[in-house]
């Protein structure tokens, strides 16, 4: 009896939360089909797939998107390599300055982005470095390293050190041990660090805005466009990215589920 009376509360609550989370996303998707030509894309004018058929119509969108993807890839890759090495050193070795390193690693995560971005700009100006593509990359590597270290370190902690000794015992030198045992074991953490870094970089506006010079990333383009009306092509690209990510996530879940099922099948 109790069950039937309160049975609707939890599902209703769940749906409210889901709607709260996804309503903005659905608005973005819906307005990629809005039949407008210029001005502010906020009032529904009718359905069209015109913008989906012509996503390259605004050259700035495509160019800034490309810039953002390249920066995201570069900064995530560099930060992942450096972060993995730092994480290994922090977990494995006791060295001078280890605890100091730990504190410094948290700083970029704890510092407000406005402060981080403006400080970096001050630094670049002092060093007489012209801001642009590479200063954005440097800035993104900076905050990505912290996240990479934290992500990879979680994977390395709880890693049986005897596995590496066993590899050494079985005629693997240090490099082979890393390649054949350590890296495969921490790979999920390393990949997660890369994806997290990619997303953070792709998304970043504040720090980028300080250090971009004349280069325009995708978030900066959208910010600029929002003042004179965002072209519906932005919605098209945003929707495409959303769908791509969702599909990738489902594929990943399926693969993991199948792998788990295979492991359980003894």
């Amino acid at each position: 009896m109790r069950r039937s009376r309160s049975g609707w509360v939890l599902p209703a609550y769940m749906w409210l939360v889901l709607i709260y989370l996804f309503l903005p996303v659905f608005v973005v998707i819906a307005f990629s089909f809005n039949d407008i030509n210029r001005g502010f894309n906020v009032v529904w004018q009718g359905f069209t797939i015109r913008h989906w058929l012509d996503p390259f119509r605004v050259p700035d969108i495509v160019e800034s998107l490309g810039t953002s993807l390249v920066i995201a890839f570069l900064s995530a890759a560099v930060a992942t390599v450096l972060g993995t090495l730092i994480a290994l050193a922090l977990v494995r070795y006791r060295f001078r300055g280890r605890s100091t390193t730990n504190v410094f690693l948290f700083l970029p995560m704890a510092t407000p982005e406005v402060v981080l971005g403006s400080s970096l700009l001050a630094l670049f100006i002092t060093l007489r470095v012209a801001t642009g593509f590479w200063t954005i990359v440097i800035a993104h590597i900076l905050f990505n390293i912290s996240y990479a270290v934290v992500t990879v370190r979680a994977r390395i902690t709880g890693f049986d050190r005897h596995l590496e000794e066993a590899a050494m015992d079985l005629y693997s030198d240090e490099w082979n041990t890393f390649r054949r045992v350590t890296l495969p074991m921490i790979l999920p953490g390393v990949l997660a660090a890369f994806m997290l870094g990619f997303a953070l970089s792709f998304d970043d506006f504040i720090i980028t805005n300080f250090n971009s010079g004349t280069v325009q990333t995708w978030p900066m383009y959208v910010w600029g466009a929002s003042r004179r009306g965002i072209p519906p092509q932005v919605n098209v690209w945003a929707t495409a990215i959303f769908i791509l990510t969702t599909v990738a996530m489902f594929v990943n879940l399926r693969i993991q589920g199948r792998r788990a099922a295979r492991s359980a099948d003894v």
Partner: protein
Amino acid sequence: MDTRTDIPAVELDGVTKEFADFTAVYELNLAIGENTFFALLGPSGCGKTTTLRMIGGFEDPTTGVIRLHGEDVTGQKPYQRPVNTVFQSYALFPHLTIFENVAFGLRRRGVEDAEVKRRVNEMLELVQLTPFIKRKPKQLSGGQQQRVALARALVNHPRVLLLDEPLGALDLKLRKEMQIELKRIQQEVGITFIHVTHDQEEAMTMADVIAVMHQGRIERMGEPTEIYEDPRTAFVAGFLGASNMMSVTVVDRGSGAVALNGGTRLHIDPSKLDGGDGTVRVGVRPEKLRIYPIDEVSLPPNVLQGTVTDASFIGVSTHYLVEADHIGEIAVVAQNLDDHHHRPGDPVKVGWLPQHCFVVA
């Protein structure tokens, strides 16, 4: 076994290992002969695992030299040494199949594919794991994982195999089986096994030679029966099983006559009294004692009188505790040969033969 004329398989020469805050191994000298099943036995923290890790190359000695078959390997990396290790946690590679785990060492040494396949299959047959070849380590039971770890080491034909408490994680029944299995494999492959354990029964079951370690030093080394019957130190006597210890005064060294506090005469093997003067500590194992009714007349040379305080029947034997004059409680293990059972409160005599006494430093 004579290790003085042959070159020993493993030789430690004045090896000391200091860590930041303590000395794990102190001035260790040790020679282990070819084809020996050698056990390093001791409580946790005695330095046995550190010793093993130094032989394997996972720790460098602070001072001293380690030789394998006469060759100085001190400072060599683990992958440069002709030894392989079975780790306590097995340390199987979780991302590789059983086949690839066992093949790992051969592949790193560039053995060609067909040969790898042949040797891995042969080895998995030896440890009876052929049906599990495509599985991952997590899908195997503890005992099976243990055998994979053994196969992964043995497939490389090491000249010395190091085993770090390899049976510690198994339940009692499986451990007994694996003890026999390990001994069989050692005899079959005919290489030196160095086995680290804290289980004295395990060491005595398997080993040809046992070294008992205590606080970074080897206290006693020899064949199992030899060190059990004549442990020489109180620590070894206690670690290798129960024993009744008593302080006695030497009365006549020539005949081995000694006296307890109250004046009771006892006799011990005179050869064991060398050097011992005045007061010495002697011990006798519970199973060497026999318990007699108080009116028994046919008794061995050493006799004590006392009262039974506890009797526990455990099937194959009965364990008695006897409160004896001038000594205190002594333990007696009696075989259940007749139906004469003594009850708590019964006055009894306890007797044993002089050669069953040992003297400890």
